[in-house]
């Protein structure tokens, strides 16, 4: 398990890769992601995604807040996989994904 704590300008977020036996890549995002740390989080996520294959899953169970910069980094990381699955997003984040018309790309895990 690899983990990285990211903090900038008081906004705190963390990225970690969770083990998964089904061959999927599961990346857990925690805390808050906004424009102040989206660059760092995005670079880290990109590094984790690089060299993996199979379905990409973002575990958002412990993610409290994400703005459009955060959505952009999810889109960026999942573009070459034909999208990604979101695990356990909060109702607020779920609503934003739906309202932005992105639920066909960032799919909610069944």
């Amino acid at each position, binding site marked *: 398990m690899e983990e990285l704590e990211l903090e900038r300008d008081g906004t705190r977020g963390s990225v970690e890769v969770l083990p998964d036996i089904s061959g999927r890549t599961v990346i857990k995002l925690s805390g808050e992601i906004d*424009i102040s740390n989206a660059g760092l989080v995005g670079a880290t996520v990109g590094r984790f995604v690089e060299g993996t294959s199979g379905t990409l899953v973002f575990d958002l169970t412990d993610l409290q807040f994400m703005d459009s910069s955060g959505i*952009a980094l999810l889109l*960026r990381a999942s573009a070459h996989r034909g999208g990604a699955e979101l695990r356990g997003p909060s109702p*607020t984040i779920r609503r934003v994904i739906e309202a*932005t*018309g*992105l639920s066909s*790309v960032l799919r909610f895990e069944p």
Partner: protein
Amino acid sequence: MPARQAWPGPSRLSTLGIAVMLGGLVLSGVLSWTTRSLYGNSEGKLLLLRVRDAGSLLSVSLPGIQTPLASAAATALATNGNARQFTSSVAPSVGRGRRFDSISLWKIQAGSYRLVAVSGLAPHLLSSPGRARTIFQSAPSTSPLRVTYVATSQPRLGYAITATGTEGHYAVYGEAALPRAGRLQIAKDSAFSDLDYALYVNTRGQSSHLVATSVARLPIRGESASVRIPFGDASLDLVMTPRGPLVGTFFADVPWIVLAVGVLLSIAAGLMTERLVRRRKLAENIADQLDDVATENQRLYDEQRTIAETLQHALLPQDLPQFEGLDISALYISGSDSVEVGGDWYDVLALDDDHVLVVVGDVSGRGLRAATIMASLRFATRAYAQQGDPPDAILAKLSLLLDVVRDGHFATVLCMVVDLSTGKVAITNAGHPAPLLVELRGASAFLDTTVGMPVGVVERPTYAADALAIPRDSTLLVFTDGLIERRGEALDVGLQRLRDATDVSGGSLEEFLSAVVGSLLPGGAEDDVAIVGLRWKS
């Protein structure tokens, strides 16, 4: 940044430091003086006690003079002036190292006196008949012992005691030489060795004479005390002065120690105060400099913000076209805590006499890159619309210009073409918040638009073309999410807040927009906000 002197001048003492030092010095002086007078007082009292002690000791020794003489007089009376018996009775008291140099027996009869016997040296009284008459014939006083001072080359004291019998009376007269030159030191092991003294005798009809002293020069000066001791018909005056401090040298030094410590403490206190004053000054200087830095930062921040706002406004429409039957107004509010240019935009463009393009979009993120993407999307939209493309086609073409993987940004866009003649609106929504329709009576509803993929997410998205009819006297609000979103709050709460804020009546469209923004963002916007209002006139 202005250069500043960080350190105060090197040598000038501060007023406070000097004041503290002077205050300390005055206090030390007063303390020292008080200690000194207390010491002087106790020294004086102690001296008086010592002199009284010495006087008591002296008076106790005086009977040693009177007793052998009185005893000899009694013997003479009893033996009727027997010379041999007299001589043998006084012999132990006469001689070198003894109390008397000479003791003589005199017979006094009918106003004349006659020497009967002498033990020791011949009395000097013989050479002074006047003195002898005085001492033997003077009226009896309260004391049987009469004392006289015999002033010869070496002064003496003479003592006489008279015994009165039936056939005349006898007088016993003793003489003792006073110390040579009057000097007699107190023995070193005596309890009074720390004192100097002078002893005077006052005899009847004579002036005061020195008996003995331990000092070379008389009279005794300085701190002294005296006591008078009765001695026969005369008296002794004992005057004493301390050779050194009686209470002890330490106590004598106390005032000086107090003064010295006080002066040192005053100087230390003054220097300490000086140090504190300087530190304070230094701290103030540093605080001033920090203020300067903060001011400079604020200035840079303001400058950056001004640049961002200038750029932002340059990228947005300067004037909105006006139409008959349709009021259009727009507001752009920069995010309060950002110095970077944002990606929100709005645009209004008259396509022909009857058609108006209205666009509100939001490029994700902030910064120059987001702003340039916004600008290219804005002008591309105008170009496609001018070519006659409907909103769904315009947004599909925009998707060719933006790629979130390549550019790091995507954009939500609401694109509308308003038909002024029919009041119908063709709308395509690319992931954007739906517009709010506010009717004349305040009832409001979000337009039911088909939400498509934001621009820049997939290469060839397909967009729906919605056609909606807008009732007359209604107001349509098209906005970006900064108007309704709060961090950590559900989206629908913000949407409802907007509906509540629009439940106002009267006023122009501009006033309406200002009222809505003022109600939703009383403290300024956190994120950038673009809002366009359209009002169909009846």
